[in-house]
């Protein structure tokens, strides 16, 4: 059998446990996995509505840390409701309640990023989301975090149907870090780390999060097994041939890598356990 593997799989961390996975619509991603994008202007967002889709006094805050790493020393500039603008990043401002959810228009806090300007000064951006008031945990509210393409808009809602990447937040937690953006390589890095902090967002708490998640956004796929290597080993063991071109191809496996890894997740987990 001849098999062709996509190069993107090199940045996809092999899923080992269901518990570790981050589930977005029809995609399953392991923390540390990287998704490339082409846009120069993107929008990081946290969007929410109440469980019954009506307006409610639920306050969720979005913050981001702009990170410059120099000889192992971190420098971080926060972007949050108390520091709305810095270089190529602009926060939409604090929204302390949400409107009724209709026609995919959803209350959102967002941070507009100009990658070209930011990459001169920083390496990474890590985003965090925290429930400030109105809900006990992410189970109490419908909440989405993600990335959209596009330029600055003055509205306090976004269209939830358009996104480059989106994940739903659930669980008995008040605090979450969904993604990091690698500014140099233009990649979304999946973090998806929950924590039980409930003291709101301060520079200290943001820095603590950046510190504890740095192993993930700093090339986790180099230290953790990636799908590409794993499948190569698998094919070698099974005696399958790996080809670089489409000629004589029998199986074009993982053509759209993210989706197909999701589709074959059970099989992969079965092999490993």
């Amino acid at each position, binding site marked *: 059998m001849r098999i062709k593997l996509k190069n993107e799989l090199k940045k996809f961390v092999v899923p080992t446990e269901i518990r570790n996975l981050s*589930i977005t619509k029809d995609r399953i991603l392991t923390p540390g996995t990287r998704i490339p994008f082409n846009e120069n202007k993107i929008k990081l967002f946290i969007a929410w509505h109440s469980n019954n889709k009506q307006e409610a006094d639920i306050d969720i805050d979005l913050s981001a840390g702009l990170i410059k790493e120099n000889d192992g020393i971190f420098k971080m500039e926060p972007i949050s409701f108390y520091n709305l603008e810095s270089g190529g990043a602009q926060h939409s401002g604090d929204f302390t309640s949400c409107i009724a959810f209709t026609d995919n228009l959803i209350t959102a806090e967002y941070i507009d990023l100009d990658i070209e300007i930011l990459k001169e000064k920083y390496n990474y951006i890590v985003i965090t989301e925290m429930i400030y008031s109105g809900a006990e945990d992410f189970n109490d509210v419908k909440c989405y975090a993600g990335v959209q393409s596009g330029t600055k808009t003055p509205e306090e809602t976004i269209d939830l149907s358009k996104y480059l990447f989106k994940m739903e937040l659930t669980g008995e937690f008040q605090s979450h870090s969904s993604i990091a953006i690698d500014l140099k390589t233009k990649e979304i890095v999946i973090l998806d780390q929950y924590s039980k902090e409930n003291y709101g967002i301060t520079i200290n708490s943001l820095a603590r999060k950046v510190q504890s998640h740095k192993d993930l956004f700093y090339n986790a796929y180099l230290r953790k097994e990636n799908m590409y290597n794993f499948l190569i080993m698998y094919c070698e063991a099974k005696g399958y041939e790996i080809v670089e071109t489409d000629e004589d191809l029998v199986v074009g496996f993982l053509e759209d890598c993210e989706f197909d890894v999701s589709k074959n997740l059970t099989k992969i987990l079965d092999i490993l356990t």
Partner: protein
Amino acid sequence: MILNDKLILGLSTDIPNENRRVKNIKKVITLIKDAEKSKCYLTKKLISALINAGGVDFDMYNTLLQQKFKENRSELTQRGTFKNQIKTSRYNNLKVDNLLELYPKNTNFRVIDVMTTIEYHNKIIALINLPIVFGNKELLEIRSMLDMDYWELFEIVKYSFNEGMKVKENIFKIISLFESSEQRTLIMESNTIKTTTDVLRYIYFVTDNDYTELPSKDIMEYPIKFKLRTSTKKDIMLLLSNISINEDDVLKYKKQWFRVQYNLSPYSEKFSKFSTELFDILKKNPKKTFSQKSENYKKKNKMKKLIKHLSKKPGELLRSLDYIIRNSKKKDIQVLKEHIEEINFSTKLLMQVRKWVEYRSSNSLETRTFKPKGKVFSTNEKPLDKLGSKGDVIEIALRNKLREYLKDAEDIFKDEI
């Protein structure tokens, strides 16, 4: 279903989709037919499922039975009192035809599944093991992973174990949900009891003591009396003979085991068939635990002995591989390689460790962080050197081992062709 009444009533019953409702009704009917053919567990569960299906609570079910009783007084009284009738009919003697008559028409049937007691028990445990952190319905919508119907069951199980979803502490809580006649079968046949600590919990459970938190130190101050029946004693001895005994686990609860030994008298003639390995360990009374021994070898830098010692626990060996390779000489590496070839590892851990060794063979480790209970801080120690050629040798051994496992694994490309 074997969960107690309250739990059964907790199931949701409204299915908005008309087609699905019809499908479920058909499913129930086929199940009823099957149940009549095979006189096994089906009837019992089916009744519960049916009660649940129409949103009929147990009181209503009793009222319905009562109505039925009034209508067919003569028929029912022949078999005994009404109270007994409910008791027996609920589980054993109720005919399926009667049940359908009892049942209000035009209701939404919903059956979660039909399984044997052990399958059901294992399913509950599997549900508890599901990611609570995510608790994400979208995960379950991936049909290949788990049937959506189980989601509701998961919600119930989650609700009833809201104190904490840890399986080990809750095994007997789960088992106590089953009928007392089934409990023994479950314990002896379901493979839930895997370690000596589980057996100790079982002893606490059968003697009506609190099995969730085992006291480790002050037991002698507040001695627990384990009043054990002979049949239970035999069960305990059988369980202890069937599991592999870990010395550390035994020593952790040494005082309890002495107390058990006192009541159990394992060396008596009637238990001559069974293994007394655990009590032999108590007799020897070794002073050092497994990890104390390995720490000792590390201190004295006796790598060969450390490798041999850690080989008893393959996971421990893999986890301390970086340390061993760093501190080993070339001769020790050969010993390590030979051990790796012989031991059986978990595929997942093997894959993760292989990647790590591959990375460390060519990279030094600059940032060393420790995570005591979630807090992170760096040490001021020097960066760790790369593992170099020693790492390469082990990486190849691990890769070959992994290849062996992958060769026997299921074909993931099967559906793609």
